[in-house]
């Protein structure tokens, strides 16, 4: 197995881990928020079922000033409302959101960077 292949394997492993966390986060946190009448319309647009899980994770994982900026924009309907979500989530939910979102972004970005380096024949 080449160096590129093993590095990509590590990134993919993180990716699989994040997909498992996606399901866990969806079941633990987002299910609770979907049932709550206060929050169920604040989860952002749902392109396909499960997309609101990404919206909620993004709202809880990213710094609040970014979320406020996004919510104030004309495209606010795309995003979950972080201010309300903070009221109805506990510390565990937020940590889970941060770990999931972090693992997801990290794995995809590193896969793309590795593939870019490979296409520039960095690993030859």
């Amino acid at each position, binding site marked *: *197995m080449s160096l590129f*292949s093993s590095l990509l394997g590590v990134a993919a492993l993180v990716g699989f881990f994040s997909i498992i966390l996606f399901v866990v986060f969806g079941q633990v946190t987002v299910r609770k928020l979907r049932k709550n009448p206060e929050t169920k319309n604040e989860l952002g647009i749902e392109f*396909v079922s499960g997309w609101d899980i990404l919206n909620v994770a993004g709202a809880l994982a990213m710094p609040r000033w970014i979320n406020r900026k996004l919510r104030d924009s004309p*495209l606010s309907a795309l995003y979950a409302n972080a201010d309300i979500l903070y009221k109805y989530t506990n510390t565990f939910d937020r940590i889970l959101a941060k770990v999931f979102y972090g693992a997801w972004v990290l*794995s995809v970005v590193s896969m793309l960077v590795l593939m870019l380096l*490979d296409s520039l024949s960095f690993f030859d």
Partner: protein
Amino acid sequence: MSEILLCNQSLAADSLQDIYSISGNDVVGVGCMKPTVFEAYTPYAVSQNPSSIDQSVLNQLKPRSVSQELTNLSLSFGGDNVVALADVTSKLQEYNIGLMGASTSVYANRIGGFAGAVKDYQAALMEFRQAIKTNPAVKNVAKQKAYAAFQKMQRNFQLELQAVTAHSKARKGTPLTSATRATNIARSSRNVTKLNVRNHIQASNLVKLSKHAKFLGNGLAVIDFGSRVGNIHNSYKAGENWEREMFVESSSFALSVSAGALAIKAGGAALTFLMVATPVGWVGLIIGGVAVAGVAATTSIIVNSGIKNNSGSWYDAIMEWIQS
């Protein structure tokens, strides 16, 4: 052009003449018979000399599951819109087969979302209709709900709605362009709806639409997944290592979906900040949306091929490690 008549309760032929000024003699049912009573949820053609096209259209719409769904859809959306929607739906399905490789394209997602929003709106209208009949106390709440669902649909899917309603000529507006019109239709006691069916193809599109109306929400990833299952099956039939093939296909599917989703998120955020920072209008947003769709599709294709080329060797390494 065939004109189809549907009603949601049985109706005597002469009352049709009184209320809608359509002569009972001009209406034929399946098998060219002239009905005296119009059965609920049964299609009839409005024509003095029914052609073979009329007959085949009637036959396609005849199954109860099809005609009932279609009657309800036309009552809440208006016949014109149902025909237009069916047209759009079938075009999108053709388009999506071309997008098979890109397992999460923004566009597939948007269509899912659009169908979802239309479905919500329809459900709210139906609820309003029900509330008028059975429980007038909650009428206003139901009406507000319908308006809210309409606004959500309008806000998020302006472009699709324009495409759908572009060739509708209704002067008063249609349920898809005006919530007032929609709630008025829902409130009025109309129970006969007329559909203009241009030709055969549209009749079968209508069948498709009423079959899919219930579960339009998801389903597009299924096409992509189907082709992958086909690959695994081929490798099994050829006597190759199909478990290895399954590992390759499933890991590349999962990771390319994940990468495509991130590209959509990142593109969406970039677009949002662009809208806040610059005076870019809706035209810019549409161009930007197309760009994001392209980037997301490209990202998931790239990740898909990258993972496909390498995950075989991961499988080998894992097997070696387990066996040693």
